[in-house]
């Protein structure tokens, strides 16, 4: 049985690889030419010349524009809503998409409530940019460069390579289920040595794919998105050198925020005092991350983009970057107010984490005013800091505003679930879990909560089914789901 599952797993992984190879190309048609992300493109041709004009074919990984937005809202700290910024960013994105020659490209731009320099796109065509990145950029052309880079990932269907990791994890989950079934059938309470070895190997394979193979696979993709981004900037009449100044800002941010060797050494030392295995694991992770995450180095990306720009567009008048439209938008009183208030909210959260409740409360109070008076994130931080000062009524009011906000944040729901669970209102906590799941597009983040609470209410069979489903359909969440399924079972409800 295990051999069959093992072979099936290998087959699935192979299928994933070949699937990527075909979907990576234009329209998924079989082609003898190597996919562009494998570096098969001549340096004499532009990236855009390989993009066939016409209708955009939706990614097989797309879940729907709105569902994708709902799920991503539940990933971090929610979204910052500002109609003027969103309008501006979406118009800019439309120009970039229009310049690609592709029609019917789905998606829109959303602003992440996040002070870091971050941006990403999804198979649904949505582009997510953090508040931190918007604050760092200085011209409309730099903003266009960021959007052009992310839109390029969508146009080139780069997300398809995620399929490999997903399929491999699903195969591993199935393999584990097979081992579990075999152990149960044999009546044994422990997994045999050979099965344990197989499980370890499967986990190692998944780790290698996640940490080494996929990032390596993604390196050419990042470069390709930079270069197609340059083409799109030129075609949409933006100043293409802005791609380089945007990357320079990313590089400066990376430099300012990378962990120093000394600081890492200190962390390892502390971990070693607690547990040697943890320290070894940290060192291993660091080694893997050094190989994967730091490449391609941003400096290399900058050089390659500059060479591409000079090679293909060096003789053209590239136009000076326009600072005025972006500066005008960011200094609009309504926009500036939203940006300022969110910065206050982030600062309040930081102060709260440092145990400075009074200062955190003052900053949160200032954050939850005017245009952001009913926003979920500032109110959630206010509720937390008010509670830390024993101002329960104020905390409840702020939490109420946060919950009824039109732009919800997951932390509020987490707090409500845990608070109800702690006071013994497990059915109410379960209700909040369902509400959270519905609000955030069925994001898997809520599944471990549900499994834990189901077990506490004695609904063990439901918890088991959900755990199985979680492992197979959302393999990234397999471990938290399995851990939640270890919760001691409560008394089953009376029928």
């Amino acid at each position, binding site marked *: 049985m295990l051999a069959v599952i093992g072979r099936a797993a290998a087959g699935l992984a192979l299928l994933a690889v070949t699937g990527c190879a075909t979907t990576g190309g234009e329209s998924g048609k079989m082609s003898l030419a190597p996919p562009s992300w494998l570096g098969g493109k001549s340096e004499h041709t532009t990236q855009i010349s390989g993009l066939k004009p016409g209708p955009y074919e939706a990614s097989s990984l797309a879940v729907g524009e709105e569902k994708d937005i709902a799920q*991503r809202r*539940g*990933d*971090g700290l929610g979204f910052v809503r500002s109609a003027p910024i969103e309008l501006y960013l979406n118009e800019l994105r439309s120009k970039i998409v229009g310049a690609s020659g592709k029609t019917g490209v789905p998606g829109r731009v959303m602003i*992440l409530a*996040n*002070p*870091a*320099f*971050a*941006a*990403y796109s*999804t198979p649904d065509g949505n582009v997510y940019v*953090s508040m*931190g990145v918007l604050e*760092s950029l200085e011209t409309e052309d730099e903003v266009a460069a960021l959007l052009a880079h*992310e839109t390029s*990932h*969508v146009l080139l269907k*780069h*997300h398809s*390579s*995620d399929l490999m990791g997903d399929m491999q994890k699903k195969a591993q989950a199935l393999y584990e289920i097979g081992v579990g079934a075999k152990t149960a059938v044999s009546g044994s309470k422990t997994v045999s040595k050979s099965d344990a070895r197989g499980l370890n190997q499967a986990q190692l394979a998944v780790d290698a794919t*996640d940490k080494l193979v*996929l990032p390596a696979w*993604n390196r050419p*993709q990042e470069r390709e*998105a930079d270069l197609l981004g340059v083409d799109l900037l030129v075609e949409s009449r933006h*100043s293409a*050198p802005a791609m*380089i*100044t945007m990357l*320079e*800002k*990313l*590089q*400066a*941010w*990376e*430099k*300012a*925020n*990378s*962990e*120093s060797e*000394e*600081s890492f050494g200190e962390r390892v030392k502390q971990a070693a005092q607690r547990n040697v295995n943890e320290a070894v694991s940290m060192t291993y992770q660091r080694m893997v991350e050094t190989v994967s*995450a730091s490449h391609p180095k941003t400096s290399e990306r*900058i*050089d390659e983009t*500059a*060479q591409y*720009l*000079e090679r293909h567009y*060096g*003789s053209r008048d*590239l136009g*000076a970057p326009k600072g005025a439209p972006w500066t005008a938008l960011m200094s609009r009183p309504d926009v500036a107010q939203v940006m300022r208030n969110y910065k206050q909210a982030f600062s309040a959260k930081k102060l709260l984490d440092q145990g400075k409740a009074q200062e955190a409360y003052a900053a949160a109070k200032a954050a939850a005013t005017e245009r952001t008076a009913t926003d979920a994130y500032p109110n959630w931080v206010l509720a937390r800091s008010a509670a830390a000062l024993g101002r329960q009524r104020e905390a409840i009011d702020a939490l109420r505003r946060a919950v009824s906000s039109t732009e919800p944040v997951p932390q509020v729901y987490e707090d409500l679930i845990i608070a109800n669970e702690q006071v013994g209102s497990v059915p109410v906590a379960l209700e909040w879990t369902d509400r959270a799941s519905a609000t955030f597009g069925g994001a898997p*983040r809520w599944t471990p909560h549900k499994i834990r609470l189901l077990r506490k209410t004695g609904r063990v069979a439901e918890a088991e089914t959900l755990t199985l489903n979680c492992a197979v359909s959302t393999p*990234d969440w397999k471990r938290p789901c399995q851990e939640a399924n270890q919760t001691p079972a409560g008394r089953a409800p009376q029928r």
Partner: protein
Amino acid sequence: MRRGRVSRRNLALVVVLLATVSAAWAAELPKVESLKVTKLRMEKVALYLCDGERKKAEREFARTDFREPWPATQDATSPLFLRVTVEGHEYCVKAFTVDTDKAVSASKECNTQVASQQPRTAATRGVGVGCSQ
């Protein structure tokens, strides 16, 4: 004689006044940032005459010949060019073709959560997480 002495005094006053005005005017001018070109991004970088149309390179400079930093300033006529001094001569160079020591400010945001899981394919990688405060 007397008239001549007055004129000299007036002249001195005018000189002082002019010096003051020009100093104030100079103070209002945007400061020209002194930079250094620290690296060439191309195998060969085109150097243009700043007074010309900048369509045809006056000369090319090979990366392998780049030994020491070039003094540079932002070109006043175009933000896309830098004025550089190479071997005692002034040229204009496309700013994106070279790396400079220009400071790019960046905020420090540690332990920020970008997403609950690993950043996806297209994400700017998870930098800043767990960095030293």
